[in-house]
Protein backbone atom coordinates (compact mmCIF):
# COMPACT_ATOMS: atom_id res chain seq x y z
CA UNK A 1 0.00 0.00 0.00
CA UNK A 2 1.40 3.38 -1.01
CA UNK A 3 0.56 6.83 0.23
CA UNK A 4 1.49 10.30 -0.91
CA UNK A 5 1.62 12.91 1.84
CA UNK A 6 1.07 16.43 0.54
CA UNK A 7 1.82 19.22 2.97
CA UNK A 8 3.98 22.33 2.89
CA UNK A 9 5.11 21.71 6.44
CA UNK A 10 8.03 19.33 6.55
CA UNK A 11 7.28 18.49 10.17
CA UNK A 12 3.69 17.63 9.40
CA UNK A 13 4.74 15.52 6.41
CA UNK A 14 7.05 13.58 8.70
CA UNK A 15 4.33 13.05 11.29
CA UNK A 16 1.72 11.88 8.82
CA UNK A 17 4.20 9.74 6.90
CA UNK A 18 5.50 8.24 10.13
CA UNK A 19 2.00 7.27 11.19
CA UNK A 20 1.29 5.77 7.79
CA UNK A 21 4.51 3.79 7.87
CA UNK A 22 3.48 2.37 11.24
CA UNK A 23 0.36 1.13 9.48
CA UNK A 24 2.43 -0.53 6.80
CA UNK A 25 2.32 2.12 4.09
CA UNK A 26 5.16 2.96 1.78
CA UNK A 27 5.14 6.74 1.78
CA UNK A 28 6.06 9.51 -0.60
CA UNK A 29 5.96 13.22 0.01
CA UNK A 30 5.10 16.37 -1.90
CA UNK A 31 5.29 19.99 -0.82
CA UNK A 32 2.18 21.26 -2.55
CA UNK A 33 -0.57 20.23 -4.94
CA UNK A 34 1.42 20.90 -8.11
CA UNK A 35 4.37 18.95 -6.78
CA UNK A 36 2.04 16.04 -6.08
CA UNK A 37 0.38 16.26 -9.51
CA UNK A 38 3.83 16.18 -11.11
CA UNK A 39 4.66 13.03 -9.19
CA UNK A 40 1.44 11.33 -10.24
CA UNK A 41 1.93 12.52 -13.79
CA UNK A 42 5.39 11.02 -13.75
CA UNK A 43 3.99 7.59 -13.01
CA UNK A 44 3.91 7.40 -9.23
CA UNK A 45 1.06 5.10 -8.33
CA UNK A 46 -0.42 5.42 -4.90
CA UNK A 47 -3.50 4.12 -3.11
CA UNK A 48 -3.94 7.13 -0.86
CA UNK A 49 -3.21 10.85 -0.82
CA UNK A 50 -3.24 12.73 2.49
CA UNK A 51 -3.71 16.35 1.55
CA UNK A 52 -3.26 19.57 3.46
CA UNK A 53 -5.61 22.39 2.48
CA UNK A 54 -3.52 25.56 2.60
CA UNK A 55 -0.35 25.24 0.57
CA UNK A 56 1.59 27.50 -1.82
CA UNK A 57 1.49 27.04 -5.61
CA UNK A 58 -1.54 24.72 -5.54
CA UNK A 59 -3.84 24.24 -2.57
CA UNK A 60 -5.34 20.95 -1.49
CA UNK A 61 -8.84 21.62 -2.77
CA UNK A 62 -7.57 22.39 -6.25
CA UNK A 63 -5.45 19.25 -6.16
CA UNK A 64 -8.49 17.17 -5.24
CA UNK A 65 -10.50 18.63 -8.11
CA UNK A 66 -7.67 18.02 -10.57
CA UNK A 67 -7.18 14.43 -9.51
CA UNK A 68 -10.90 13.72 -9.62
CA UNK A 69 -11.15 15.14 -13.12
CA UNK A 70 -8.55 12.71 -14.45
CA UNK A 71 -9.63 9.10 -15.03
CA UNK A 72 -6.05 7.90 -14.65
CA UNK A 73 -6.29 8.41 -10.92
CA UNK A 74 -9.79 7.19 -10.29
CA UNK A 75 -8.63 4.49 -7.88
CA UNK A 76 -6.77 6.88 -5.61
CA UNK A 77 -8.37 7.57 -2.24
CA UNK A 78 -8.19 11.22 -1.27
CA UNK A 79 -8.20 12.30 2.35
CA UNK A 80 -7.88 15.88 3.47
CA UNK A 81 -5.68 16.24 6.54
CA UNK A 82 -5.99 19.83 7.59
CA UNK A 83 -6.62 22.32 10.36
CA UNK A 84 -9.58 23.69 8.41
CA UNK A 85 -12.48 22.58 10.58
CA UNK A 86 -15.40 24.74 9.48
CA UNK A 87 -18.37 22.65 8.44
CA UNK A 88 -18.66 24.53 5.16
CA UNK A 89 -15.06 23.72 4.28
CA UNK A 90 -15.59 20.03 4.94
CA UNK A 91 -18.65 20.06 2.71
CA UNK A 92 -16.67 21.80 -0.02
CA UNK A 93 -13.90 19.24 0.11
CA UNK A 94 -16.32 16.32 -0.04
CA UNK A 95 -18.22 17.91 -2.87
CA UNK A 96 -14.96 18.37 -4.76
CA UNK A 97 -14.33 14.64 -4.46
CA UNK A 98 -12.41 14.05 -1.25
CA UNK A 99 -13.34 10.73 0.30
CA UNK A 100 -12.44 11.57 3.84
CA UNK A 101 -11.52 14.47 6.03
CA UNK A 102 -9.26 14.33 9.06
CA UNK A 103 -8.91 17.44 11.14
CA UNK A 104 -5.59 18.37 12.71
CA UNK A 105 -4.58 17.80 15.40
CA UNK A 106 -5.31 14.12 15.24
CA UNK A 107 -4.15 11.03 17.07
CA UNK A 108 -2.62 7.99 15.38
CA UNK A 109 -5.80 6.12 16.35
CA UNK A 110 -7.93 8.63 14.49
CA UNK A 111 -5.87 8.18 11.34
CA UNK A 112 -6.08 4.40 11.67
CA UNK A 113 -9.86 4.56 12.20
CA UNK A 114 -10.35 6.60 9.05
CA UNK A 115 -8.15 4.32 6.97
CA UNK A 116 -9.86 1.25 8.34
CA UNK A 117 -13.22 2.61 7.33
CA UNK A 118 -11.84 3.38 3.91
CA UNK A 119 -10.71 -0.23 3.68
CA UNK A 120 -7.07 0.74 3.54
CA UNK A 121 -5.91 -1.05 6.67
CA UNK A 122 -6.70 -4.30 8.37
CA UNK A 123 -9.20 -3.89 11.18
CA UNK A 124 -7.33 -3.33 14.39
CA UNK A 125 -8.95 -3.84 17.71
CA UNK A 126 -7.16 -3.11 20.85
CA UNK A 127 -8.56 -4.70 23.92
CA UNK A 128 -7.47 -3.62 27.32
CA UNK A 129 -8.25 -6.40 29.65
CA UNK A 130 -7.73 -5.52 33.27
CA UNK A 131 -8.20 -9.06 34.46
Amino acid at each position, binding site marked *: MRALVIDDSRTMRRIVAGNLQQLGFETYQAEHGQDALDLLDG*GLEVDLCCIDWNMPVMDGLTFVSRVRADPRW*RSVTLMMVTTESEQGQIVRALAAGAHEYLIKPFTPDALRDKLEFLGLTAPAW*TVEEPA
Partner: protein
Amino acid sequence: MALSQESFAWVADLVRRRSAIQLAGGKEYLVESRLLPLARDLTGGDVDAYVQRVRGGGHDGEHGRIVEALTTNETSWFRDSSPFTSLRTHVLPQLLSTRGSVAHLKVWSAACSTGQEPYSLAMTLTDALPPGASFEILATDLSEQVLTRARSGRYSQLEINRGLPAPLMVRHLTRVGAEWQISDGLRRTITFRAHNLLDPPPAGARFDIVFLRNVLIYFDAATKKAILDRVRRVLAPDGALVLGAAETTIGIDDSWQRVPVGTGSVYTPSRAGAAGGAPFGAPAGGPAGGPAGGPLAGGLPSPRVAPAATPAAALAGGPPGAASLAARAPLGRAVAAAGTAGSLLPRPRPAAAQPLVPGQSRPATTPRPVPAAASGAARGARPLPNASDRNPPGRSPFDRTTYDRPTPAATPVPPTRGAQR
Protein backbone atom coordinates in the same frame (compact mmCIF):
# COMPACT_ATOMS: atom_id res chain seq x y z
CA MET B 1 2.74 6.11 48.88
CA ALA B 2 2.39 3.05 46.68
CA LEU B 3 -0.82 1.14 46.75
CA SER B 4 -0.68 -1.56 49.43
CA GLN B 5 -1.83 -5.08 48.66
CA GLU B 6 -4.57 -4.64 51.22
CA SER B 7 -5.88 -1.52 49.51
CA PHE B 8 -5.64 -3.16 46.12
CA ALA B 9 -7.55 -6.20 47.36
CA TRP B 10 -10.28 -3.97 48.79
CA VAL B 11 -10.63 -2.04 45.52
CA ALA B 12 -10.63 -5.25 43.50
CA ASP B 13 -13.36 -6.68 45.71
CA LEU B 14 -15.46 -3.52 45.45
CA VAL B 15 -15.15 -3.46 41.67
CA ARG B 16 -15.93 -7.16 41.40
CA ARG B 17 -19.08 -6.84 43.54
CA ARG B 18 -20.35 -3.78 41.73
CA SER B 19 -19.47 -4.56 38.15
CA ALA B 20 -18.23 -8.16 38.12
CA ILE B 21 -15.05 -6.94 36.53
CA GLN B 22 -12.08 -8.94 37.72
CA LEU B 23 -8.95 -7.06 38.70
CA ALA B 24 -6.28 -9.69 39.07
CA GLY B 25 -2.99 -9.19 40.84
CA GLY B 26 -0.55 -7.31 38.67
CA LYS B 27 -3.11 -4.64 37.86
CA GLU B 28 -2.03 -2.42 40.72
CA TYR B 29 -0.66 0.08 38.22
CA LEU B 30 -4.06 0.29 36.57
CA VAL B 31 -5.78 0.98 39.89
CA GLU B 32 -3.20 3.56 40.83
CA SER B 33 -3.36 5.45 37.57
CA ARG B 34 -7.16 5.40 37.37
CA LEU B 35 -7.67 6.43 41.01
CA LEU B 36 -5.04 9.15 40.98
CA PRO B 37 -7.46 11.88 39.84
CA LEU B 38 -9.85 10.93 42.64
CA ALA B 39 -7.05 10.85 45.20
CA ARG B 40 -6.01 14.34 44.20
CA ASP B 41 -9.33 15.67 45.46
CA LEU B 42 -9.29 13.89 48.78
CA THR B 43 -5.73 13.12 49.80
CA GLY B 44 -3.55 15.27 47.62
CA GLY B 45 -2.75 12.46 45.22
CA ASP B 46 -1.85 9.68 47.65
CA VAL B 47 -3.83 6.77 46.24
CA ASP B 48 -3.24 4.41 49.15
CA ALA B 49 -4.29 7.05 51.67
CA TYR B 50 -7.33 7.76 49.52
CA VAL B 51 -8.39 4.11 49.54
CA GLN B 52 -7.86 3.86 53.27
CA ARG B 53 -9.93 6.96 53.90
CA VAL B 54 -12.77 5.68 51.74
CA ARG B 55 -12.61 2.33 53.53
CA GLY B 56 -12.79 4.17 56.84
CA GLY B 57 -16.36 5.20 56.07
CA GLY B 58 -18.14 8.45 55.48
CA HIS B 59 -17.23 8.52 51.81
CA ASP B 60 -19.75 6.14 50.29
CA GLY B 61 -20.15 8.35 47.27
CA GLU B 62 -16.57 7.55 46.40
CA HIS B 63 -17.40 3.87 45.92
CA GLY B 64 -19.22 4.62 42.72
CA ARG B 65 -16.47 6.94 41.53
CA ILE B 66 -13.90 4.19 42.07
CA VAL B 67 -15.91 1.64 40.10
CA GLU B 68 -16.50 4.13 37.34
CA ALA B 69 -12.83 5.09 37.15
CA LEU B 70 -11.91 1.45 36.67
CA THR B 71 -14.41 0.64 33.97
CA THR B 72 -12.95 1.33 30.58
CA ASN B 73 -14.94 3.71 28.44
CA GLU B 74 -12.95 3.32 25.28
CA THR B 75 -15.21 3.89 22.33
CA SER B 76 -15.26 5.39 18.89
CA TRP B 77 -17.66 5.90 16.01
CA PHE B 78 -18.39 2.78 13.97
CA ARG B 79 -15.89 0.94 16.11
CA ASP B 80 -14.38 -1.94 14.13
CA SER B 81 -16.78 -1.03 11.27
CA SER B 82 -17.50 -4.68 10.44
CA PRO B 83 -20.51 -5.02 12.80
CA PHE B 84 -22.20 -2.06 11.14
CA THR B 85 -21.57 -3.55 7.73
CA SER B 86 -23.03 -6.86 8.94
CA LEU B 87 -26.05 -5.01 10.24
CA ARG B 88 -26.68 -3.35 6.91
CA THR B 89 -25.92 -6.23 4.60
CA HIS B 90 -27.29 -9.20 6.52
CA VAL B 91 -29.10 -8.55 9.77
CA LEU B 92 -31.52 -5.92 8.50
CA PRO B 93 -32.42 -7.69 5.24
CA GLN B 94 -33.10 -10.87 7.21
CA LEU B 95 -35.27 -9.14 9.77
CA LEU B 96 -37.17 -7.20 7.14
CA SER B 97 -37.81 -10.37 5.19
CA THR B 98 -39.79 -11.76 8.10
CA ARG B 99 -41.23 -8.56 9.50
CA GLY B 100 -42.07 -6.78 6.31
CA SER B 101 -40.92 -3.40 5.15
CA VAL B 102 -42.96 -1.51 7.74
CA ALA B 103 -41.26 -3.19 10.64
CA HIS B 104 -40.50 -1.30 13.79
CA LEU B 105 -37.14 -2.54 15.03
CA LYS B 106 -35.96 -2.31 18.59
CA VAL B 107 -32.28 -2.16 19.26
CA TRP B 108 -30.38 -2.36 22.52
CA SER B 109 -26.92 -0.85 22.67
CA ALA B 110 -25.59 -2.26 25.92
CA ALA B 111 -22.62 -0.62 27.61
CA CYS B 112 -22.95 2.32 25.25
CA SER B 113 -20.33 4.48 26.97
CA THR B 114 -20.40 8.07 25.71
CA GLY B 115 -22.89 7.29 22.95
CA GLN B 116 -20.81 6.81 19.82
CA GLU B 117 -22.14 3.29 19.30
CA PRO B 118 -25.88 4.06 19.54
CA TYR B 119 -25.47 7.16 17.39
CA SER B 120 -23.53 5.10 14.84
CA LEU B 121 -26.37 2.57 14.93
CA ALA B 122 -28.93 5.31 14.44
CA MET B 123 -27.02 6.65 11.44
CA THR B 124 -26.80 3.19 9.93
CA LEU B 125 -30.48 2.39 10.49
CA THR B 126 -31.59 5.78 9.20
CA ASP B 127 -29.84 5.07 5.94
CA ALA B 128 -30.54 1.38 5.61
CA LEU B 129 -34.20 0.99 6.52
CA PRO B 130 -36.77 1.37 3.79
CA PRO B 131 -39.40 4.09 3.98
CA GLY B 132 -42.12 2.97 6.33
CA ALA B 133 -39.84 1.03 8.59
CA SER B 134 -38.81 2.60 11.86
CA PHE B 135 -36.57 1.94 14.79
CA GLU B 136 -35.83 2.90 18.33
CA ILE B 137 -32.69 2.37 20.31
CA LEU B 138 -32.27 1.81 24.00
CA ALA B 139 -28.73 2.68 25.03
CA THR B 140 -27.58 1.71 28.48
CA ASP B 141 -24.45 1.98 30.55
CA LEU B 142 -23.41 1.48 34.13
CA SER B 143 -22.10 4.99 34.44
CA GLU B 144 -24.42 7.97 34.76
CA GLN B 145 -21.46 10.19 34.01
CA VAL B 146 -20.96 8.81 30.52
CA LEU B 147 -24.72 8.70 29.93
CA THR B 148 -24.97 12.41 30.63
CA ARG B 149 -22.37 13.00 27.97
CA ALA B 150 -24.09 10.58 25.60
CA ARG B 151 -27.46 12.26 26.02
CA SER B 152 -25.99 15.66 25.25
CA GLY B 153 -24.82 14.45 21.87
CA ARG B 154 -21.96 16.93 22.04
CA TYR B 155 -18.49 15.82 21.03
CA SER B 156 -15.06 17.38 20.81
CA GLN B 157 -13.08 17.59 17.61
CA LEU B 158 -10.77 14.82 18.80
CA GLU B 159 -13.73 12.54 19.49
CA ILE B 160 -15.27 13.33 16.12
CA ASN B 161 -12.03 12.39 14.43
CA ARG B 162 -12.25 8.89 15.89
CA GLY B 163 -13.90 6.89 13.14
CA LEU B 164 -16.81 9.10 12.13
CA PRO B 165 -16.82 9.28 8.33
CA ALA B 166 -16.79 12.89 7.18
CA PRO B 167 -19.91 12.56 4.99
CA LEU B 168 -21.88 11.35 8.00
CA MET B 169 -20.38 14.01 10.20
CA VAL B 170 -21.63 16.86 8.05
CA ARG B 171 -25.02 15.20 7.65
CA HIS B 172 -25.80 14.38 11.23
CA LEU B 173 -23.80 16.89 13.24
CA THR B 174 -23.49 20.63 13.38
CA ARG B 175 -20.45 22.47 14.52
CA VAL B 176 -21.05 24.51 17.66
CA GLY B 177 -17.99 26.49 18.65
CA ALA B 178 -15.16 24.05 19.06
CA GLU B 179 -17.49 21.06 19.38
CA TRP B 180 -19.95 19.13 17.28
CA GLN B 181 -23.62 18.53 18.12
CA ILE B 182 -25.66 15.50 17.06
CA SER B 183 -28.89 16.47 15.31
CA ASP B 184 -32.12 16.45 17.31
CA GLY B 185 -33.65 14.00 14.85
CA LEU B 186 -30.99 11.41 15.56
CA ARG B 187 -31.06 12.03 19.31
CA ARG B 188 -34.80 11.42 19.39
CA THR B 189 -34.33 7.86 18.21
CA ILE B 190 -32.33 6.92 21.29
CA THR B 191 -33.30 6.54 24.94
CA PHE B 192 -30.33 6.58 27.27
CA ARG B 193 -30.69 4.86 30.59
CA ALA B 194 -28.50 3.58 33.42
CA HIS B 195 -28.38 -0.17 33.62
CA ASN B 196 -26.01 -2.70 35.09
CA LEU B 197 -25.55 -5.84 33.02
CA LEU B 198 -25.63 -7.79 36.27
CA ASP B 199 -29.21 -6.65 36.81
CA PRO B 200 -32.23 -8.17 35.08
CA PRO B 201 -32.76 -6.76 31.62
CA PRO B 202 -35.77 -4.63 30.81
CA ALA B 203 -38.84 -6.50 32.03
CA GLY B 204 -41.02 -7.72 29.21
CA ALA B 205 -38.85 -6.03 26.64
CA ARG B 206 -38.06 -7.73 23.36
CA PHE B 207 -35.27 -6.55 21.16
CA ASP B 208 -34.55 -7.39 17.56
CA ILE B 209 -30.90 -6.44 17.67
CA VAL B 210 -28.55 -6.29 20.63
CA PHE B 211 -25.09 -4.77 20.42
CA LEU B 212 -23.06 -6.00 23.38
CA ARG B 213 -19.53 -5.28 22.33
CA ASN B 214 -16.23 -5.33 24.14
CA VAL B 215 -17.91 -5.90 27.47
CA LEU B 216 -17.85 -9.65 28.01
CA ILE B 217 -14.07 -9.66 27.88
CA TYR B 218 -14.03 -8.07 31.30
CA PHE B 219 -16.09 -10.78 33.00
CA ASP B 220 -15.36 -14.27 34.23
CA ALA B 221 -16.93 -17.24 32.46
CA ALA B 222 -19.89 -17.62 34.84
CA THR B 223 -20.79 -13.94 34.57
CA LYS B 224 -20.44 -14.03 30.80
CA LYS B 225 -22.87 -16.94 30.67
CA ALA B 226 -25.32 -15.20 32.99
CA ILE B 227 -25.26 -12.03 30.90
CA LEU B 228 -25.68 -13.95 27.65
CA ASP B 229 -28.58 -15.82 29.20
CA ARG B 230 -30.32 -12.59 30.17
CA VAL B 231 -29.76 -11.15 26.72
CA ARG B 232 -31.22 -14.26 25.08
CA ARG B 233 -34.40 -13.84 27.09
CA VAL B 234 -35.02 -10.37 25.66
CA LEU B 235 -33.89 -11.08 22.12
CA ALA B 236 -36.50 -11.99 19.54
CA PRO B 237 -36.06 -15.55 18.22
CA ASP B 238 -35.12 -14.16 14.84
CA GLY B 239 -33.08 -11.37 16.36
CA ALA B 240 -29.33 -10.92 16.26
CA LEU B 241 -26.70 -10.40 18.92
CA VAL B 242 -23.52 -8.61 17.94
CA LEU B 243 -20.47 -9.06 20.14
CA GLY B 244 -17.03 -7.46 20.06
CA ALA B 245 -14.40 -8.71 17.66
CA ALA B 246 -12.55 -10.56 20.40
CA GLU B 247 -15.68 -12.07 21.93
CA THR B 248 -17.78 -15.14 21.29
CA THR B 249 -20.50 -17.26 22.85
CA ILE B 250 -18.69 -20.42 21.84
CA GLY B 251 -17.54 -22.38 24.85
CA ILE B 252 -19.53 -20.14 27.16
CA ASP B 253 -23.17 -20.53 26.28
CA ASP B 254 -24.30 -23.21 23.82
CA SER B 255 -27.75 -21.75 23.34
CA TRP B 256 -26.43 -19.41 20.68
CA GLN B 257 -25.76 -20.07 17.06
CA ARG B 258 -22.86 -18.32 15.40
CA VAL B 259 -23.61 -16.98 11.95
CA PRO B 260 -20.50 -15.92 10.03
CA VAL B 261 -21.10 -12.63 8.25
CA GLY B 262 -18.35 -11.07 6.19
CA THR B 263 -15.23 -10.89 8.29
CA GLY B 264 -17.16 -11.16 11.56
CA SER B 265 -20.06 -12.98 13.14
CA VAL B 266 -23.47 -12.37 14.58
CA TYR B 267 -25.22 -14.65 17.03
CA THR B 268 -28.79 -15.77 17.09
CA PRO B 269 -30.66 -17.83 19.68
CA SER B 270 -30.31 -21.45 18.66
CA ARG B 271 -33.48 -23.34 17.84
CA ALA B 272 -33.29 -25.24 21.09
CA GLY B 273 -33.03 -22.09 23.11
CA ALA B 274 -35.55 -20.02 21.20
CA ALA B 275 -39.19 -19.71 22.07
CA GLY B 276 -40.22 -20.07 18.46
CA GLY B 277 -40.06 -18.26 15.20
CA ALA B 278 -37.55 -18.33 12.44
CA PRO B 279 -34.02 -17.92 13.65
CA PHE B 280 -31.79 -15.43 12.02
CA GLY B 281 -30.34 -16.92 8.92
CA ALA B 282 -33.17 -19.37 8.42
CA PRO B 283 -35.70 -18.99 5.63
CA ALA B 284 -38.63 -16.79 6.47
CA GLY B 285 -41.38 -18.91 7.88
CA GLY B 286 -44.30 -16.68 8.56
CA PRO B 287 -44.42 -14.11 11.27
CA ALA B 288 -41.46 -14.31 13.54
CA GLY B 289 -41.83 -14.83 17.21
CA GLY B 290 -40.64 -11.33 17.92
CA PRO B 291 -42.63 -8.23 18.45
CA ALA B 292 -43.19 -7.90 14.73
CA GLY B 293 -43.69 -4.24 14.66
CA GLY B 294 -45.64 -3.97 17.88
CA PRO B 295 -44.34 -1.96 20.72
CA LEU B 296 -42.41 -3.67 23.41
CA ALA B 297 -44.49 -5.13 26.16
CA GLY B 298 -44.43 -2.27 28.54
CA GLY B 299 -42.86 -0.26 25.84
CA LEU B 300 -39.71 1.69 25.66
CA PRO B 301 -40.67 5.04 26.97
CA SER B 302 -40.20 7.81 24.55
CA PRO B 303 -37.37 10.11 25.51
CA ARG B 304 -39.98 12.81 25.68
CA VAL B 305 -42.04 10.84 28.14
CA ALA B 306 -39.36 9.66 30.44
CA PRO B 307 -36.34 11.85 30.26
CA ALA B 308 -33.64 10.38 32.41
CA ALA B 309 -36.23 8.62 34.50
CA THR B 310 -33.81 6.73 36.63
CA PRO B 311 -33.01 8.62 39.74
CA ALA B 312 -30.11 7.32 41.69
CA ALA B 313 -29.64 4.85 38.94
CA ALA B 314 -25.96 5.11 38.53
CA LEU B 315 -23.08 3.94 40.48
CA ALA B 316 -21.40 7.23 40.22
CA GLY B 317 -22.29 10.80 39.69
CA GLY B 318 -25.36 10.39 41.81
CA PRO B 319 -25.85 11.40 45.38
CA PRO B 320 -24.17 9.45 48.13
CA GLY B 321 -25.96 6.19 48.49
CA ALA B 322 -26.83 6.03 44.86
CA ALA B 323 -24.10 3.53 44.51
CA SER B 324 -25.91 0.82 46.34
CA LEU B 325 -27.11 -1.96 44.14
CA ALA B 326 -30.52 -1.81 45.73
CA ALA B 327 -30.93 1.79 44.81
CA ARG B 328 -30.27 1.17 41.17
CA ALA B 329 -33.50 1.20 39.25
CA PRO B 330 -33.71 -1.75 36.91
CA LEU B 331 -34.81 -0.88 33.45
CA GLY B 332 -38.03 -2.75 33.79
CA ARG B 333 -39.09 -0.66 36.70
CA ALA B 334 -38.33 2.51 34.88
CA VAL B 335 -40.31 1.30 31.91
CA ALA B 336 -43.28 0.43 34.07
CA ALA B 337 -43.06 3.75 35.82
CA ALA B 338 -43.16 5.55 32.55
CA GLY B 339 -46.36 3.73 31.79
CA THR B 340 -46.38 4.38 28.11
CA ALA B 341 -47.58 2.02 25.47
CA GLY B 342 -44.36 2.11 23.59
CA SER B 343 -43.06 4.87 21.51
CA LEU B 344 -43.41 4.71 17.80
CA LEU B 345 -40.68 7.06 16.99
CA PRO B 346 -41.09 8.57 13.62
CA ARG B 347 -38.40 7.38 11.35
CA PRO B 348 -36.16 10.29 10.61
CA ARG B 349 -36.19 11.07 6.97
CA PRO B 350 -32.89 10.28 5.42
CA ALA B 351 -31.19 13.41 4.31
CA ALA B 352 -29.16 11.35 1.96
CA ALA B 353 -30.80 12.34 -1.25
CA GLN B 354 -30.19 16.01 -0.70
CA PRO B 355 -26.69 17.26 -1.18
CA LEU B 356 -25.81 19.70 1.51
CA VAL B 357 -24.57 22.09 -1.07
CA PRO B 358 -27.32 22.68 -3.59
CA GLY B 359 -26.20 22.14 -7.09
CA GLN B 360 -23.00 20.47 -6.10
CA SER B 361 -22.68 16.83 -6.62
CA ARG B 362 -19.90 14.43 -7.23
CA PRO B 363 -18.65 14.60 -10.80
CA ALA B 364 -19.73 11.72 -12.96
CA THR B 365 -16.19 10.57 -13.22
CA THR B 366 -15.96 10.07 -9.53
CA PRO B 367 -14.33 6.73 -8.99
CA ARG B 368 -15.60 5.54 -5.71
CA PRO B 369 -17.99 7.50 -3.67
CA VAL B 370 -19.87 4.92 -1.80
CA PRO B 371 -23.49 5.61 -1.25
CA ALA B 372 -24.21 2.71 0.99
CA ALA B 373 -27.61 1.33 1.58
CA ALA B 374 -29.72 3.75 -0.30
CA SER B 375 -33.10 4.32 1.22
CA GLY B 376 -35.62 1.84 0.12
CA ALA B 377 -33.05 -0.66 -0.87
CA ALA B 378 -33.82 -3.14 1.83
CA ARG B 379 -37.16 -4.48 0.84
CA GLY B 380 -37.94 -8.05 1.47
CA ALA B 381 -35.03 -10.38 1.67
CA ARG B 382 -33.07 -8.62 -0.96
CA PRO B 383 -29.67 -7.80 0.43
CA LEU B 384 -28.88 -4.18 0.69
CA PRO B 385 -26.71 -2.86 -2.09
CA ASN B 386 -23.26 -4.26 -2.10
CA ALA B 387 -20.07 -2.78 -3.29
CA SER B 388 -20.71 -3.44 -6.91
CA ASP B 389 -23.93 -1.50 -7.23
CA ARG B 390 -23.29 1.10 -4.64
CA ASN B 391 -21.46 3.50 -6.78
CA PRO B 392 -23.73 5.12 -9.32
CA PRO B 393 -22.21 8.13 -10.97
CA GLY B 394 -23.44 11.48 -9.94
CA ARG B 395 -24.57 10.47 -6.47
CA SER B 396 -24.17 12.95 -3.74
CA PRO B 397 -20.99 12.34 -1.80
CA PHE B 398 -23.07 12.75 1.30
CA ASP B 399 -24.90 9.51 0.68
CA ARG B 400 -21.92 7.52 1.74
CA THR B 401 -22.05 5.51 4.88
CA THR B 402 -19.55 2.88 3.91
CA TYR B 403 -16.53 2.85 1.81
CA ASP B 404 -15.10 0.49 -0.67
CA ARG B 405 -11.48 0.16 -1.15
CA PRO B 406 -10.51 1.53 -4.52
CA THR B 407 -9.34 -0.93 -7.08
CA PRO B 408 -5.65 -1.28 -6.52
CA ALA B 409 -3.41 -0.21 -9.30
CA ALA B 410 -2.96 -3.18 -11.58
CA THR B 411 0.72 -2.84 -12.14
CA PRO B 412 2.55 -0.73 -9.66
CA VAL B 413 4.99 1.47 -11.48
CA PRO B 414 8.05 2.56 -9.59
CA PRO B 415 8.13 6.30 -9.21
CA THR B 416 10.19 7.97 -11.82
CA ARG B 417 10.96 10.78 -9.47
CA GLY B 418 10.16 11.85 -6.00
CA ALA B 419 11.61 8.72 -4.54
CA GLN B 420 10.65 7.95 -1.03
CA ARG B 421 11.70 10.88 1.02
